[in-house]
């Protein structure tokens, strides 16, 4: 009887440990964009697989097709993704169209507090309507548009002397947008080591979101606002304010006088290529790429340094980054929620930062050693303190494409004036909000 009891207890224990795991082991699919941090996430997720017994599959889509592919998937109620790290601007559509699972009850039950994450990221990546405590995502990847430059060129005596002679000041990281343009213009067409180099690579891409993400990096520091009063959709005087017009003219001047020839449709990939091939002195891109750039054997290490998007009238950076959501059409929501619970863990968040992902968790960001943990960590913190995002409305795609058209028409195709471009943009956006019944 004793032997039987021992066997029974042993069997019961075995069942209690292994059966629930085996019975609920799922094949989860996580969808995201194909870029450096995605590879880090694959590495990170191995730990989750080992702990939970679930296996992770990944669907990574190249950036130019990411929105198109994923929004089609969501709109058609597709079951491809159980978890989606979707762009911040999708949160409105994800919530209102029922694509994302609302996470409030889950967070309460599991003791996950949004106070543990950087407020800017919670606001941008998780909440809908904006700023309300209705959460549809967990901040997964903090990001902003920043800059990097050829430190080795900036430190060369001959170049520094030439810059001083040309501008009357020392060559260094720019403190304003105007200074940045001046530096870029100084390098434009300059011969360095027998090769013609150019000022900077900026975003000009037409098809998806490129030029909008680039131009807002000038608009925000000039004080651009989408509405006169938040939530009013009252755009006249805000979107086309004199500051906005000046910022747009600045971006066009930058494009025309300080970028390499042929960069008429360039985004993340082209910016990285221009820098890595030694064509440009500076380049804009998302912080997400900075670990990879720093590790580059040819242009990384001592040859590179980073700076936050310079202020002009005020500090301002374009927000990137994403939150992780559970897709409402998934049949494996429980396992997907398990992943979110695991991902919210401070130790996992610390490892996420180590591997190259940008954690938005306060335990990582507020760590005294964080600023010195990477050459761009301090800039990242500074950028995240002054980020602004594009509209996050359910009609965001219409709003974005209208801006892509108006800005590209003006900046690259040289049609009309900055004032006309912004006036037309207000007309387009007004039409969208009228269709939406918000005006």
């Amino acid at each position: 009887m004793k032997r039987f009891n021992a066997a029974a207890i042993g069997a019961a224990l075995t069942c209690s440990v292994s059966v629930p795991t085996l019975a609920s082991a799922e094949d989860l699919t996580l969808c995201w964009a194909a870029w450096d941090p995605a590879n880090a996430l694959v590495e990170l997720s191995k730990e989750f697989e080992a702990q939970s017994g679930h296996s992770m599959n990944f669907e990574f889509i190249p950036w130019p097709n990411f929105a198109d592919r994923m929004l089609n998937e969501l709109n058609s109620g597709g079951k491809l993704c159980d978890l989606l790290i979707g762009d911040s601007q999708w949160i409105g559509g994800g919530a209102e169209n029922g694509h994302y699972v609302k996470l409030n009850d889950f967070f309460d039950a599991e003791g996950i507090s949004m106070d543990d994450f950087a407020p800017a990221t919670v606001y941008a990546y998780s909440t809908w309507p904006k700023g309300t405590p209705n959460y549809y995502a967990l901040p997964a990847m903090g990001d902003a548009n920043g800059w990097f430059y050829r430190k080795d060129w900036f430190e060369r005596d001959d170049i520094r002397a030439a810059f001083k002679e040309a501008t009357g000041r020392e060559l260094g990281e720019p403190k304003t947008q105007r200074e940045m343009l001046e530096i870029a213009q100084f390098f434009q067409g300059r011969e360095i080591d027998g090769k013609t180099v150019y000022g900077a690579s900026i975003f000009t891409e037409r098809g998806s979101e490129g030029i909008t993400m680039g131009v807002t990096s000038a608009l925000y520091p000039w004080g651009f606002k989408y509405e006169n009063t938040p939530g009013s959709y009252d755009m006249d005087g805000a979107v086309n304010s004199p500051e906005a017009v000046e910022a747009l003219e600045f971006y066009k001047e930058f494009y025309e006088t300080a970028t390499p020839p042929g960069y008429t449709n360039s985004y993340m990939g082209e910016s990285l290529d221009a820098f890595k091939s030694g064509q440009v002195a500076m380049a804009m891109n998302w912080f997400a790429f900075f670990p990879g750039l720093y590790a580059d054997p040819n242009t990384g290490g001592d040859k590179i340094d980073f700076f936050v998007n310079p202020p002009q009238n005020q500090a301002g950076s374009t927000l990137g980054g994403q939150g992780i959501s559970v897709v409402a059409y998934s049949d494996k929501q429980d396992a997907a929620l398990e992943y979110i619970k695991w991902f919210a863990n401070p130790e996992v968040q610390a490892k996420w930062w180590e591997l190259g992902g940008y954690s938005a968790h306060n335990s990582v960001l507020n760590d005294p050693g964080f600023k010195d943990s990477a050459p761009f960590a301090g800039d990242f913190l500074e950028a995240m303190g002054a980020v602004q995002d594009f509209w996050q409305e359910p009609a965001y795609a219409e709003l974005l494409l209208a801006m892509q058209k108006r800005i590209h028409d003006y900046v690259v195709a040289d049609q009309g004036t900055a004032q006309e471009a912004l006036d037309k943009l207000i007309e387009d956006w007004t039409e969208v909000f009228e269709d939406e019944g918000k005006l």
Partner: protein
Amino acid sequence: MTDPIATRAAKATPPRVARQIKGLSDRAIAWIFVAPTIFLLLAINIFPLIWTIQLSFTNYKANRLNREPEFIGLRNYERILTDSDIWLNMQATAHFLFWTIALQVLIGFALAWLIHRNFKGSNFWTTVIVLPMMLSPAVVGNFWKFLYQPQIGLFNYIVTFFTRAEPSSFEMLGSVQLAPWSIVIVDTWMWTPFVMLICLAGLRSIPDYIYEAAEIDRASKLRQFFTITVPMVLPFLMLAVLFRGIENFKMFDLVVQLTGGGPGSTTELTSINLKREAFEKWRTGYASAYAIILFVTVFGLASIYVKALNKVKER
């Protein structure tokens, strides 16, 4: 006289089937055979067309399944026809259509005429010329994007070899003036062989005795060309123009790869704009109206053209 094939077919029909169809008229049997095709045609072509027409009168958005579409009458049509940006897209499409067809017909016919001479190695050159047509438009788009690159692209170097200008002094894809021509050049490079093949078929269909008779009548080569060659190849040429016209009216992939519709909206052809409205902005009702307008335009132009083609054939 009994058709031997029909007799054989009747004998080959299994007795059970033969008994079943015995009472059916020829017309009924014909309907049975045609019905699956008609059903497929209705399901794949006619039903979506009717549905599209219906959607074009609404503000339906396919990404807002929880929002009831409203009937808005002709508002979508009115918006499209009064939108100056859409007329610019139409102009860009017309420019692309006109110049690609004109160049392809001229070069295609000239190449066909040369190949028709049957010189030594003509078969080899025919294969070489036809190669671009066999490539995927996406590959061609990417390939030409590199060729047009102002700093390292071969195209700029070839042009500057003749003009002595700086290779990076002009941008084929980034310039408002040059971008519409850059897509014309690539489409012409890719599809001229198609026109050439059709013209070659036309040239080879002209019997030699007509030229021999003309020779006897002492008609000059030029006279033979304009009074025999051109009129007899004309129906083939018109067919090639019809095919290329319809194809280029819906041109999408090649131009998206090359310019993405830019710079600005300079090369944003109607098909690219329509795709953006339908599947990026998700304005399904609006895009349906847009598609109907394009359909009516192409259908109307093609009908007029086919009538003209038939008249030429009858001559």
